[in-house]
């Protein structure tokens, strides 16, 4: 069971980083207290992981058939890659790190399935696009409905506050259901854990990261999205949650950070504002290439050393 330790480490880092995309806005604007936010996130992450987590497990597990020790090496490589890239301030995605690591390990065993890779990479590209499109239409639709039915400023503010909290809970649920496969999916493929057990352990490890390591990132991300008005912020979080949930149904783990960046761009399209800088988009592009490649190389090296 010690081989699962590297997965728990990866989950802890994921929880610490990605929870900021959910309640960052709410906490930074004072709509919700930090403590309440992390408890809600932790609870809904675990529920999402338990109820829908197994849907993405197969994608990670079937990409390469790994031995349990290789699965340990993969999650360790993905965890180290994430830590280093985050330290270098390159926006990295756990989904891309673990897929790169699994492919690196698969190259050693000869079981790397490149034919499944196109579908996964396509989903990565579609994640910010999905965020843009969903945010654009949700902003238009809900904006129209609010304009028509809720005229009082007081009620509107109440709607935004409740909306951000509910969208945050849904976002946490979607994060748990989509990203738990990154943490423990390889162990299911290696036959070390059953899908429900992997979902449970993965969900708890993400929740532990949310509860112990999310404050700094949550404040940073929150302030980055704060220039949006409350309604746009609510739409951005809701769109991110819907995007993640859609990819959970497809069965591919994707990046919550890229979904939220897409959603913020989508909101900007409606409001005629450039919400994301070209630099930020270029960094995402660099992350798309550097994360899987560096995780793949590291995983290849680690597994060569330990096997």
């Amino acid at each position, binding site marked *: 069971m010690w081989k699962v330790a590297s997965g728990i480490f990866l989950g802890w880092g994921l929880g610490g980083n990605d929870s900021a995309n959910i309640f960052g806005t709410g906490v930074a604007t004072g709509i919700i207290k930090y403590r309440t936010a992390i408890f809600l996130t932790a609870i809904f992450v675990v529920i999402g992981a338990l109820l829908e987590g197994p849907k993405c497990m197969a994608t990670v597990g079937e990409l390469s058939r790994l031995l349990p020790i290789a699965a340990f090496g993969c999650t360790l490589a993905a965890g180290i890659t994430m830590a280093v890239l985050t330290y270098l301030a390159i926006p990295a995605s756990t989904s891309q790190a673990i897929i790169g690591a699994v492919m690196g390990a698969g190259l050693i065993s000869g079981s790397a399935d*490149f*034919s499944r*890779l196109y*579908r996964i990479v*396509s989903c990565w590209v579609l994640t910010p696009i999905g965020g843009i499109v969903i945010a654009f239409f949700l902003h238009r639709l809900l904006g129209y409905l609010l304009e028509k039915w809720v005229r009082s400023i007081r009620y509107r503010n109440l709607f935004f506050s409740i909306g951000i909290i509910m969208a945050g809970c849904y976002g946490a649920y979607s994060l748990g259901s989509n990203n738990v496969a990154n943490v423990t999916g390889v162990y299911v493929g290696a036959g070390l854990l059953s899908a429900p057990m992997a979902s449970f352990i993965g969900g708890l490890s993400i929740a532990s990261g949310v509860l112990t390591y999310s404050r700094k990132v949550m404040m940073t991300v929150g302030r980055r999205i704060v220039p949006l008005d409350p309604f746009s912020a609510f739409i951005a979080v809701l769109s991110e949650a819907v995007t993640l949930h859609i990819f959970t149904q497809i069965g591919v783990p994707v990046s919550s950070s890229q979904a939220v960046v897409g959603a913020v*761009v989508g909101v*900007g399209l409606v409001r*005629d*504002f*450039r919400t994301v800088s070209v630099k930020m988009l270029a960094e995402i592009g660099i992350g798309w290439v550097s994360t899987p490649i560096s995780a793949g190389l590291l995983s290849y090296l680690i597994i060569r050393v330990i096997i």
Partner: protein
Amino acid sequence: MVRLNRIWKLYVVYTIVLMVCMIAGGLILQAKLRETLEGHLTEEVLALTRVIVKNLPNTDDSAILDPFCQAHGEIAGVRITIIKADGTVVGESDRKSMGMEKHLDRTEVKDAISEGVGTSVRYSETLGIDMLYVASLLEDKGKIIRLSMPMAKVKAVEDRITIFLTLALYLTPVVAIIICFFFAKYMAGKDQESN
């Protein structure tokens, strides 16, 4: 925040449409490629089946059918299974058929009974690779013959083409997106000057 003019809006929409079309095209191409490769392999296996059936002894005796399957399986490089209409395995090339579980619930066997030929691709835990199973109904002998072959050849070709396809499909639009970015920047600048 910087205001987003119509040219930048057009650029974002153009990029989204381009990426979505490219991804959809790639998925269709990949599905067609797999279908074609599987079709070719199935044809190969069916041709082998016809040759093997010509020599198949007309008996249900495992003591005769097992060595027959083993000998022919080794020559053809496939796994051969002879199944009675009730699902009982009476001949097997890779192990003793006696005591093997009934095969009536296997997808390819069910399809062979209803349509004459059934195919299925499944992961083999023993070999650690996807296997293609092709079952054919032998109406005159009251049996089903099933040949299985590793999908290694198909997977190798598919992997090679997928890598090339991914690079081609992603690099081409990226060039278009970068060129259009600079064009949009130039046009937006001009637009601002004229305003």
